[in-house]
């Protein structure tokens, strides 16, 4: 607290109707003052500034400081810089007029620095480095502080130097160096660094978020591929190294995925539970099961973590409702480098500001008929979009049935023509996925949404609904019809279907960006210039990425029921357990079946993403312009991750759960041949281990916790109670925020009132200075309103035309004057 030590009696404390002086928030004043005057320190004779404080100022400083404010040193130094150069040109003159010298100011600064150094010395080395790095000072000041801290630390250490302390210092130093080296190495191998910087420079951060998302998915798939390959494929390859498949390889297999690939390790069917002749027994069943389980747990955990973190940062802490003006101003993208892009961005910003102003000024006085009409239009478009989705689902279902018929009828499985005809289904699916979103965006142009963000959400919702329903139909078909009707390995059949979907989807993305962006640009510039150059449609592209990832997850997971249980329970969806145990068809075949059917799919996805990056980059550079509406990139990112998680991942999980629990594996292929359900492998294993007495605890856990419903019911109950509890805490904190805001307003009023009192007091007692203190009254003009003026708000800000120093610095100077006066009076006694 700045010592407001006014001599001549405690006139301040005598004011009975006032709050105590402790409630006066003087801290910001001292901090701002501190830094501004710190600037004075940059004199050429830096070395002459010694650490000699005037004795009396230090004494009453420390006794005024309440005990808990040791942190204030760092915080106040951190808050410097607001008045960094403000005092200097006119400031020197002003200071002299008030009667203060540079020495006083400098001394003030030195004492603050001392406090800071004292505080830094008490911290550990790592925290100290972090704290110094966080100081918003220039490099020279930071070096200064650091040297002082090191000097004082070494002088302290001279007494306590022991071997162990030295060793731990060395260890932590080397660990730090390792960490720094690792991060530099990581940066050196960062993929696509230059490209992404270029894209960010031309198109802004929201378009960049699409490419970062793509890169993230690539990394994700790389890890999953490595995991699967290491634990499942390599042992299988080792085991079957002698065999060679008896079908010739023709080029069509790359697209259809059948034929040659059928008997390789690409699909479920290629894995067997045999053992080599040597002593090493590799239980392929358990390996297959648990590897993919572990992988999915990893996926799930990382998704939840990033979703929760992103949600907290972008939705909870941010202001959803108002705040358009500041948000627009603060969202200026400093990384934009291209001149034309900057100019365009300025134009867009201006347009957006004007729009937001007109929105605020316009009130919703729409007549009833207008509103009914709007409602009618909305309803129609929703009905049409639902109809489109339903129609496409029906078409796909009939096509699936037709395919099955074909398989039953055909006797020659190796026929090339028949295999090519299996491509019809994926072709139709991808066609629907390409064309119908375009129809949706046309529909949304017909509607008139007041809030553009709402419009984006609606479009995303419709697209997700379409894709979900298509995939649900496919899953339903696979789980119900394929398992019973296909003569061969049904898992491999499903795997092939999914493989074809992925490949054809990829081809369609290529064509999609060709048609979507290239042709639109041609149309926009040559044929119908009113449309203009297309913007890069982030939402649709991200949804495509999520859809592709969904298919991959569909194709590649086999989820241990343990993990499913814990996972699902965590979200209170324990009912799945009940469903699966009672063999009821689960209600939600949402996306994501998984790696169960083809463990090598992440590799294909990786290649696909890699190629897609370059494709999209080229298309972006040639065909698109930067988006018109800026901002909200961070929130959109949260929504994408949430979409990746919620329908996509959870749905796939549920479906795999059903597959593992209820469906019978086919008898002729795969590692789970001969079992009733896949999960039986784990049960059998548990029975085997029950014989060994050392693992009886594991068997006990399995039989009493994992197989019992009561356990999960109790867990769910506990989690619900916790959720309720935390919700109540959040509500309480919201109320606290409101109260604190009111308190800030009140404190501000107090401060202004007290400063005015101080000024009147000083004007009475500083009569000899008054003549020279020409600038004095002008400084305080803006604060001399009475309390009633506060209701007028911001018109005060427009009053002074001349360049007066602001409110805060005048308050500081007043306070300094008062203190100096008090010192002089003390000396007189």
């Amino acid at each position, binding site marked *: 607290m700045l010592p407001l030590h006014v001599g001549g009696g405690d006139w301040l404390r005598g004011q009975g109707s006032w709050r105590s002086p402790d409630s006066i928030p003087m801290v*910001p004043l001292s901090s*701002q003052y501190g830094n501004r005057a710190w600037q004075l320190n940059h004199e050429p004779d830096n070395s002459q500034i010694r650490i000699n404080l005037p004795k009396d100022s230090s004494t009453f400083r420390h006794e005024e400081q309440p005990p808990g404010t040791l942190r204030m040193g760092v915080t106040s130094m*951190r*808050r410097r*810089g*607001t*008045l*960094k150069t*403000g005092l200097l040109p006119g400031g020197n003159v002003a200071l002299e007029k008030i009667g203060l010298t540079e020495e006083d100011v400098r001394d003030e600064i030195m004492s603050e620095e001392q406090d800071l150094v004292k505080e830094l010395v008490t911290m550990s080395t790592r925290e100290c480095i972090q704290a*110094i*790095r*966080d100081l*918003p000072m*220039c*490099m*020279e000041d930071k070096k200064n502080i650091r040297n002082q801290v090191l000097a004082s630390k070494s002088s302290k250490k001279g007494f306590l130097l022991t071997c162990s302390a030295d060793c731990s210092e060395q260890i932590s130093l080397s660990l730090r160096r390792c960490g*720094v080296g690792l*991060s*530099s190495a990581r*940066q050196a191998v960062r993929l696509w660094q230059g490209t992404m*910087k270029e894209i960010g420079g031309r198109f802004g*951060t929201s378009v960049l978020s699409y490419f970062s998302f793509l890169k993230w998915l690539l990394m994700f798939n790389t890890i999953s591929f490595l995991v699967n390959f290491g634990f499942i494929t390599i042992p299988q390859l080792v085991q079957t190294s002698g065999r060679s498949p008896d079908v010739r390889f023709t080029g069509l297999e790359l697209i259809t995925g059948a034929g040659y690939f059928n008997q390789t390790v690409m699909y479920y069917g290629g894995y067997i539970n045999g053992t080599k002749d040597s002593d090493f027994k590799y239980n392929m069943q358990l390996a297959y099961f648990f590897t993919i389980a572990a992988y999915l747990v990893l996926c799930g955990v990382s998704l939840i973590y990033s979703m929760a973190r992103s949600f907290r940062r972008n939705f909870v*802490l*941010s202001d959803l409702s*108002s*705040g358009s*003006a*500041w948000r627009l*101003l*603060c*969202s*200026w993208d*400093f*990384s*934009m*480098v291209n*001149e034309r892009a*900057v*100019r365009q961005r*300025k134009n867009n*910003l201006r347009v957006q*500001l*004007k729009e937001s*102003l007109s929105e605020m*000024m316009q009130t919703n006085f729409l007549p009833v008929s207008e509103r009914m009409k709007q409602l009618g239009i909305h309803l129609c478009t929703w009905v049409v979009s639902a109809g489109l989705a339903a129609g496409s689902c029906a078409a796909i279902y009939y096509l699936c049935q037709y395919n099955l018929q074909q398989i039953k009828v055909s006797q020659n499985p190796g026929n090339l023509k028949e295999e090519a005809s299996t491509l019809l289904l994926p072709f139709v699916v991808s066609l629907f996925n390409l064309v119908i979103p375009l129809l949706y965006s046309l529909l949304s142009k017909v509607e008139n949404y007041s809030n553009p963000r709402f419009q984006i959400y609606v479009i995303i919702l419709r697209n997700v609904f379409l894709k979900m329903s298509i995939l649900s139909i496919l899953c339903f078909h696979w789980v119900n019809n394929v398992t019973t009707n296909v003569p061969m390995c049904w898992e491999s059949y499903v795997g092939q279907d999914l493989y074809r979907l992925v490949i054809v989807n990829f081809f369609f993305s290529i064509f999609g960006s060709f048609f979507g962006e290239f042709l639109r640009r041609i149309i926009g510039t040559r044929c119908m210039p009113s449309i203009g150059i297309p913007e890069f449609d982030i939402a649709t592209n991200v949804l495509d990425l999520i859809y592709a990832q969904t298919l991959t997850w569909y194709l590649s997971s086999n989820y241990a029921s343990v993990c499913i249980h814990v996972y699902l329970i965590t979200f209170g969806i324990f009912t799945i357990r009940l469903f699966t145990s009672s063999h009821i068809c689960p209600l939600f075949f949402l996306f994501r079946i998984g790696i169960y059917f083809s463990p090598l799919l992440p590799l294909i996805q990786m290649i696909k993403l890699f190629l897609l990056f370059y494709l999209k980059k080229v298309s972006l550079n040639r065909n698109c312009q930067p988006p018109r509406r800026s*901002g*909200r*990139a*961070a*929130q959109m990112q949260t929504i994408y991750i949430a979409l990746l998680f919620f329908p996509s991942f959870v749905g796939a999980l549920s479906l795999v759960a059903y597959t593992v629990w209820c469906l019978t594996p086919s008898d002729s292929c795969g590692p789970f041949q001969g079992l009733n359900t896949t999960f039986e492998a784990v049960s059998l294993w548990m029975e085997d281990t029950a014989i060994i007495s050392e693992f009886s605890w594991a068997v006990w856990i399995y039989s009493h916790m994992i197989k019992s419903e009561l356990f999960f019911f109790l867990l769910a109950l506990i989690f619900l109670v916790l959720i309720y509890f935390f919700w109540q805490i959040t509500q309480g904190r919201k109320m606290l925020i409101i109260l604190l805001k009111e308190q*800030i307003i009140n404190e*501000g009023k107090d401060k202004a009132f007290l400063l005015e009192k101080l000024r009147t007091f000083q004007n009475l007692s500083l009569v000899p200075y008054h003549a020279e203190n020409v600038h004095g009254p002008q400084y305080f003009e803006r604060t001399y309103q009475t309390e009633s003026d506060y209701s007028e708000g*911001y018109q*005060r*800000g*427009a009053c002074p035309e001349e360049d007066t*120093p*602001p409110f*805060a*610095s005048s308050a500081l100077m007043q306070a300094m004057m008062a203190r100096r006066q008090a010192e002089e009076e003390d000396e007189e006694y």
Partner: protein
Amino acid sequence: MGTSASQLPKDLLSEYQELTFLTKQEILLAHKRFTELLAKDDRSCSNPRLPMSRILTLPELKSNPFKERICLVFSTSDNKDGSLTFEDFLDLLSAFSDSATSDIKSHYAFRIFDFDDDGTLDRKDLERLVNCLTGDTDETRLTSDEMKQLINNILEESDIDKDGTVNLSEFQHVISRSPDFVSSFKIVL
């Protein structure tokens, strides 16, 4: 600093790594770009200072509407001419880097937006800020009514203690509620 060769001594490099948010590669790259901009005879002196005009030729700063303010804020020269030493340049890159904390970024953003350097953002500062971001020519400026309305909205939203200006704490509070700020306040060489 101050070696005649264009190499940073190792102890200085590690010191800079400790004091800034930059990694070793970034510091070396910054050193390279800085010495490229220096005039030939300046390269041998002990603590060379780049004049503002040369700094503004950097492609990363050339089209930035706040380029002069950035140079002025980070400059430690006595005559406020916006010239930067290498350490000032590192400070600049550190504040705009990926790993800088939101505190540092909002602090420096406040100083950049404070056009008259008085420690608060009053109406004039806000007006100049808006003009900087929307264009300063006659046909691109906002009308004075719109400007007044806009600034009233801004102040209503962010001035918590209702004194007509936005001080550092209020600014940092507003920034903490815009999650896009940290990712857009970035300049990478």
